[in-house]
């Protein structure tokens, strides 16, 4: 939705407003805890949220999207059946219960995180300062309608390599069970005038983190 018009003002908040509703906190915690079941990765999880029907995506609040994505993942991966989601549970303990995140494991799991950098045979094709052109169509080229991290506002745009981040998991592959396929990741800087018809200031810039396969040399 980057660049979209018509959304109205951004409304600042006090720093101590962490969760607006009790269920927001609960939703975040349920989603995080379910990650420990090991049935999906972060790219699959993001894609599940993006696969909500457009009208649901527009109508749902933030944590409702998380719930919608989680419900879809639980069914898709066979963790729960549709009947169980509908409240018809047999109350049998799941075979996956051994993976359950327990309270004493929480601090360690959050502290370990999930790094996305991986060794790769793909050598960096660009140097800092090189001009690059992004893929003209912001779509997954491996899977029709699949997950990608190239926003459409930055498709077909010319920028410069600003920073090299090393080799990272490619979400376009990892979101679809096609392997981690790590490749070079760069911060690419674009003049605002390359992206927008009416930039606010002649020297403003936007930087995006983009994988090597999203880019071609100019």
């Amino acid at each position, binding site marked *: *939705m*980057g*660049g979209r018009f018509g959304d109205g003002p951004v409304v600042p908040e006090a720093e101590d407003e962490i969760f607006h509703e009790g269920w927001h906190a609960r939703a975040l*915690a349920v989603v995080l805890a379910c990650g420990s079941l090991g049935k999906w990765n972060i790219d699959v999880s993001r894609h599940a949220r993006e696969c909500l029907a457009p009208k649901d995506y527009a109508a749902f609040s933030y944590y409702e999207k998380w719930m919608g994505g989680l419900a879809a993942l639980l069914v898709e991966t066979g963790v729960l059946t549709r009947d169980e989601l509908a409240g018809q549970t047999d109350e049998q303990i799941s075979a*996956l219960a051994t993976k359950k995140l327990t309270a004493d494991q929480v601090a360690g799991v959050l502290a370990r995180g999930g790094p996305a950098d991986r060794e790769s045979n793909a050598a960096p094709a660009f140097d800092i300062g090189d001009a690059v052109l992004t893929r003209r169509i912001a779509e997954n080229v491996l899977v029709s309608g699949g997950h990608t991290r190239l926003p459409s506002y930055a498709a077909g745009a010319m920028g410069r390599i600003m920073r090299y981040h090393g080799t990272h998991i490619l979400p376009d592959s990892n979101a679809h069970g096609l392997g981690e396929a790590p490749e070079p990741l760069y*911060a690419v800087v674009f003049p605002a005038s390359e*992206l927008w018809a009416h930039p606010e200031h002649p020297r403003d810039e936007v930087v995006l983190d983009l994988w090597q396969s999203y880019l071609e040399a100019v």
Partner: protein
Amino acid sequence: MRGDFGVQAWTSRLLRGKLLHMPHDHHDHDHPHSLLPPAPALRVKALETILTQKGLLDPAALDEIIDTYENKIGPRNGAHVVAKAWSDPDFAARLHEDADKELSALGYYGRQGEHMVVVENTPETHNMVVCTLCSCYPWPLLGIPPGWYKSDAYRARAVREPRAVLADFGVSLPEQTAVRVWDSTAEVRYLVLPMRPRSTDGWSEEALMDLVTRDSMIGTGLAVQP
């Protein structure tokens, strides 16, 4: 129509364990979330209940996660890093060189902060961070993102009209300052190092920390000028 799938119906099915046919008269029902009660608070409660019954969720673990982000991990971590960078030029230099190493040493490594880059504001460049594709944010340093960071308005507008967004926060930049917006499209997370306020020479790290707001580390605010 949605009333048929209210929590009472859902709960009674759960309690009775009886099979009831779910009507498929509406396309919504192909999405698994539509099997749950429609009210979001009840939807979460329903998921938590089912998953707990199946032995897949430990409610005490949920409490622990919530306590972590309500009371342990938040923007004071980031403020500590900023105040330390203002106070110690060697630390600031190392932070720019290898943020992950320095932040890990301070205990600020973790989920959603595995690959950190610190970007420094100067009179020439003001940095501002967004995630237009979802809500990526440096959790170990700033905690859970504020509602506005996750809002459609911020995600849509920050890249196209950052100065208008800054105006919503009451911030106006000088003409000579360029805005550089970082759209967090990968697993790299960005922390803005705001400019140190004037007339704070000799201030302790603790005193400086109080000038560092969460918004100043996202780039929608400036550090507090005492």
